[in-house]
């Protein structure tokens, strides 16, 4: 399997937690264990100088085990380099929040919770971001019925 310099040095540092890796056409990707995501992100930020968290999203591999994959996109401004970190997560499992490392992770993790229903442990305020409170289910899951109608929320009188 292809691997470049950065993946090699990351694997030397945290070899126990890396489940897989590839660098196909410049897409440097590592797949890591769910339990150690916070530790790994901290190392990547502080020792490998990935200062910027671009995005957090999730993929639903419906019918597979583990069902989801949470994907983190990192950018290093100082090294002009990008890295993708994937974490396999099964339904109902929690991923450690990385809000202490990057403030932007707050809304990104809320969006992932809203759309995919993946819980982030120790998140300061894990509410829905795009949909409203009272929405049932998680809209981007593959088993969300395409024609389901949700109750239309009535205006609250205390609404400001």
């Amino acid at each position, binding site marked *: 399997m292809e691997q470049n310099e950065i993946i090699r040095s990351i694997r030397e540092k945290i070899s126990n937690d890396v489940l897989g890796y590839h660098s196909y056409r410049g897409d440097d990707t590592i797949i890591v264990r769910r339990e150690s995501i916070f530790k790994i992100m901290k190392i990547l930020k502080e020792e490998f100088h990935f200062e910027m968290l671009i995005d957090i999203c999730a993929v639903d591999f419906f019918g597979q085990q583990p069902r989801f994959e949470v994907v983190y996109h990192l950018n290093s401004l100082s090294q002009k380099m990008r890295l993708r970190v994937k974490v396999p997560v099964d339904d109902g499992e929690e991923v450690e929040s990385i809000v202490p490392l990057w403030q932007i992770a707050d809304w990104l993790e809320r969006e992932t919770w809203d759309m995919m229903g993946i819980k982030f442990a120790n998140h300061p305020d894990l509410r829905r971001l*795009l*949909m*409203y409170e009272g*929405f049932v289910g998680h*809209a981007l899951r593959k088993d*969300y019925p*395409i*024609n*389901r*109608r*949700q109750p*239309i*929320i*009535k*205006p*609250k009188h205390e*609404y400001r």
Partner: protein
Amino acid sequence: MEVDKVLAGDSFFTTRLNDVIGWSRKFSIFTYPFVTACCGMEYMSVSCSHYDIDRFGAGLPRFSPRQADLLMVVGTISQKLAPVLVRIYEQMTNPKWVVAFGVCTCTGGFYDDYATVQGIDTIIPVDVYIPGCPPRPETVLDGLMKLQTKIQKEKQAV
């Protein structure tokens, strides 16, 4: 009623008061444009000199619902926005009318999904539906004239 006596005394005029009020109301529509999406471009086009909605007396947009007669809902209404729209509607004073501008507000349009209100008539009453994605300015003017006809024919609340 006082106006009755002042205008007409005991002559024939009393029976036509309803029409006079309707006539004056239909040519002095103050709109509140609730613009959320691309239909807003067509609303602007209708408002500007080429199509000139002011010919129909509806040229003055009020950006406070308390000063408006006509709520023009222009563009997609998401579920999260629904309570805001209802609140705007409730803030308007009577008499008030609602126009659903564009297919998204009429039925949800092609946004047959989890996030979009499937027609604003599920949350507030609607007087005139203007379909189209977006509707041509002529269609909007046609809808406006239909609304004027409706206002004229109404039993006028005074």
